[in-house]
């Protein structure tokens, strides 16, 4: 018997934070181990509860980060606008003759300095490349694939704020579990078909029962419907608590079938009445 999986790993599994090999191992183990299946169900319920409770807060985080991004963009644009104003003022001042003469002198001196500095730069290029290396390393630090992809697409625009925004995306918990076939089998297979059929039948019964059932038949019908609904509720709880119990599943399906038969009896009664009119 394999060792049971701890709660933290199951939580990571639900959050889709495990690598594919580890996730498959957990899924396989959970399908064979009742205790771990129970624990997974518990953790899932807990997570669902927490996410449900924090949903409003999580939703408000997104606009907050967007707001920060907007503010940063605004600051950037403000800064670029300031440089333009300074350049414009400089051009106005250069239009004066004395200043123009001084400026041309500065330009000549600047060109001379540039020539000298470019010669030095050619000599020490290797050192400059080495200096840039650590900065690239800092950018590649985040581990999440999605973040790296973003960085590769737009390296110049990467900011901590954006990376943080991606990591906090609340929709990520919808992705896990469903991709793993072993775990999805914990839901009651075939239940959906029963539920759909019952929904259709109920609709027809609601439309017709007043005309088809006399008071005593109506009373018996409503009483039996209540009994069956109660049985379905009980059995769904039982199957969730004990997902590997085939007999519990069978009884649940029998209860669904009882409800279908009961609803059908009303509709068939109506059809028979119509056929002999």
């Amino acid at each position: 018997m394999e060792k049971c999986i701890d709660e933290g790993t199951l939580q990571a599994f639900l959050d889709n934070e495990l690598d594919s090999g580890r996730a498959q191992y957990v899924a396989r183990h959970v399908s064979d181990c009742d205790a771990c299946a129970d624990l997974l169900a518990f953790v899932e319920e807990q997570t669902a509860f927490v996410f449900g409770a924090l949903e409003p807060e999580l939703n408000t985080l997104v606009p907050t980060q967007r707001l920060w991004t907007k503010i940063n963009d605004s600051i950037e644009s403000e800064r670029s606008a300031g440089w333009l104003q300074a350049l414009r003022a400089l051009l106005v001042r250069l239009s004066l003759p004395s200043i123009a003469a001084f400026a041309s002198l500065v330009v000549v001196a600047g060109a001379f300095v540039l020539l000298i500095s470019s010669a030095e730069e050619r000599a020490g290029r290797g050192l400059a490349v080495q200096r840039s290396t650590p900065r690239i390393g800092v950018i590649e630090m985040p581990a999440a694939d999605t973040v790296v992809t973003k960085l590769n697409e737009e390296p110049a625009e990467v900011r901590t704020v954006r990376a943080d925004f991606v990591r906090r995306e609340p929709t990520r918990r919808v992705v896990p579990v469903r991709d793993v076939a072993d775990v999805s089998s914990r839901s009651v297979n075939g239940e959906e078909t029963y539920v759909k059929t019952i929904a259709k039948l109920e609709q027809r019964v609601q439309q017709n029962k007043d005309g088809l059932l006399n008071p005593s038949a109506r009373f018996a019908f409503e009483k039996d419907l209540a009994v069956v609904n109660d049985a379905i509720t009980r059995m769904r709880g039982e199957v969730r608590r004990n997902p590997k119990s085939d007999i519990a599943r069978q009884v649940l399906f029998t209860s669904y079938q009882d409800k279908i038969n009961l609803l059908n009896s009303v509709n068939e009664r109506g059809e028979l009445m119509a056929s002999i009119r």
Partner: protein
Amino acid sequence: MKGKGKIFKLAAATVISVFASGIVAVAQRTPQVSPVRPVIVSSTPGIPSEKFIDVDAKPTVSLCVSGGAVKVTGWDRDEIRAFVDGGGSVGFKVAERNPKTDKAAWVFVLGFDPQSKVAGKTEECLAGETIELDVPREASVNIKGSPEETRIESVGKVRVENITGNIVLRNIGSGAWATTYDGAIMIERSSGPITLTSTSGGIVAFDVGQREVGDAFKARSSSGSVTLQSVGYRQLDVSTISGQIVYRGKLLGGGQYTFGSQNARVLLTLPASSACKVNAWYGAGAFSSEIPLQNETKSGPGTTGQLGKGETNCSIYLKTTSGQLRIVTESPEK
């Protein structure tokens, strides 16, 4: 004066002739009303209707009943007799003939006589205080409608679907399928595959058994109880929602017995020597057995084990969500 009088007479004659011709024209344009047909009542009140028809030895007889008590009985003649008292008429329509004998193989019993040349009501469903049919013993009888009661005895096969009314079946040789939405069903001394469904009434079956290997017995009631005694089938499926299930009798080797109730009691009274595998699931209910279970295994609200000693290949499945499952021994004096 005379001249004036002549003119007056002439004018009056003209006016009268114009009016008369107008009346004639209108009369000619009006469609001719056919003479009113006399409404002929098919059966004079107080005088019963009775008809006979020669049929095949194993005919299918179909009828619809809108009221009254129906009684169908098998007899040793290759003919059908239909009798209606205190109601409408009766007649036959042959839907199919036996190509070898040219006798009717499929007959509809109608609430009017299609052979009659007298015009009348054409109600397909029979109605009357008493409706009696005598049919060949091997006949298959199909009835649908809303009779107050349906009794069928000593025929081959039966198929009944009624809105209301009790259904009583006796000595049915080759199987029965009966449904009533508001009434009880009783069947006795019969064989063949049997399916009984009642919505609000109870179901009682005794002295019934399979005719061929593989014949199944199924009974389902929503709120009525199901009582079975001396039911000799290897495939038995009984279910209710809120009605109790009582089974009294032997278990056959190789049998599959399923009893399920949502919240009512399931009581099996078996001989002390019974041997069968038991698989009981009782949810919030309970399970008990007077006959000891060998190799008993409990798993949550479920118990499995073998009833009695010795090798066995029959199985009992007991299911309830919140009812009581009980197996008791049949004492000789019971």
